[in-house]
């Protein structure tokens, strides 16, 4: 795959200055959080933005960084970034290292996510939970949706093809086989289920082997809220595959579309996400990116 190489001097300064900026931002929020919260809660003009607080942490792929308090933001009627607060809130709850959360931490994170994204988000549903709710996410490939689906037939348009072609298609099927029987029978729901899928370690869920069928039925296309705690980006994804192997050191995998949206990468740049069940009995919450 073609990969653009940056000048090392650029990378050195970018990393150093992004880190410095993150440090100043953290100090500001640590010292003056109350005032910002007051502003968010009291400004009638406040709309909600998309540049989820990239300023607390590095976000090197942003071509031009913008400042959260920038007056430009205001004049262009863009939002004050509520995402900044979720990053701050999560930073206070999440451990320094990536590990399974305690019950108390799960509860706090669930409350923060539910409050922020406006949906009921829980670590456990119907008495079932996964082995983790906070873990390292790896890159998955596209999955075949029906017999005969391939890289030529897979994309809706050229833009998507250009963006996601390089990830390739997995040689095997998802955990539940094809999403539908044929191209003509494929619905938008099937398309979205593949596009926004995650692979989780279903086989490591507590008590899984007591009743595997029951657990697999429960996990099949189960909707989860997946959140990058370092930029506040969130997506509603569905479980469509099992994995990765525990030996990889990763706890879950994301489709090319999920990873791209969350700005998560595999390899040396890999990082954690939060993944919680969505308590959504009427199934009204659609798959895909979630706006704050």
């Amino acid at each position: 795959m073609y990969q653009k190489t940056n000048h090392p001097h650029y990378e050195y300064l970018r990393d150093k200055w992004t880190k410095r900026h993150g440090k100043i931002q953290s100090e500001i929020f640590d010292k003056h959080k109350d005032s910002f919260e007051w502003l968010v809660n009291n400004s009638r003009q406040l709309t909600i933005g998309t540049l989820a607080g990239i300023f607390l942490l590095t976000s090197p792929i942003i071509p031009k960084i913008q400042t959260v308090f920038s007056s430009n933001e205001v004049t262009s009627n863009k939002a004050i970034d509520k995402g900044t607060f979720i990053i701050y809130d999560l930073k206070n709850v999440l451990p320094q290292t990536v590990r399974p959360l305690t019950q108390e931490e799960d509860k706090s994170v669930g409350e923060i996510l539910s409050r922020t994204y406006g949906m009921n988000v829980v670590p456990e549903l119907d008495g079932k939970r996964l082995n983790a709710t906070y873990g390292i996410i790896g890159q998955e490939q596209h999955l075949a949706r029906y017999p005969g689906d391939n890289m030529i037939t897979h994309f809706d348009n050229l833009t998507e093809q250009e963006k996601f072609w390089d990830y390739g298609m997995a040689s095997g099927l998802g955990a539940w086989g094809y999403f539908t029987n044929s191209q003509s029978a494929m619905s938008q729901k099937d398309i979205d289920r593949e596009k926004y899928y995650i692979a989780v370690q279903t086989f490591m869920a507590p008590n899984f082997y007591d009743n595997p069928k029951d657990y697999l039925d429960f996990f099949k296309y189960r909707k989860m809220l997946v959140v990058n705690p370092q930029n506040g980006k969130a997506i509603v994804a569905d479980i469509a595959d099992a994995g990765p192997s525990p030996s990889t050191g990763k706890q879950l995998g994301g489709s090319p579309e999920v990873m791209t949206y969350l700005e998560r990468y595999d390899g040396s740049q890999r990082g954690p996400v939060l993944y919680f069940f969505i308590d959504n009995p009427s199934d009204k919450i659609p798959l895909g990116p979630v706006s704050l």
Partner: protein
Amino acid sequence: MKSKHFYSHLIETTDITIELAEIELTSDERVHLISLIEANIHSTVIETVLSNLTKEDKKIFLKNLVSNDHEIIWSHLKSKTKNIEEKISKSVGILKKDLYKDIKEIQKEKN
């Protein structure tokens, strides 16, 4: 024409951008680094101002910042703080020295 930020008249970054010009960078890389300089300066200014205000005045300042009326911002700051312009210039000056040093380190390495 209205300046970009309420503090723009206090900040001069030409010396840093001239130093950046000496380093081999693509146009996009240069733009990104300049935006990082701006972001660092902006956060430093906000931190300096907030650290010199009381709890209630912080709220007024942030509200004024949202309104983007430079005159109101300054009128409030000048009535509630002492020598705030000097303090902003001083803290940004320290930051700029650090950024300048980072660039110089690269140039030294190159030679």
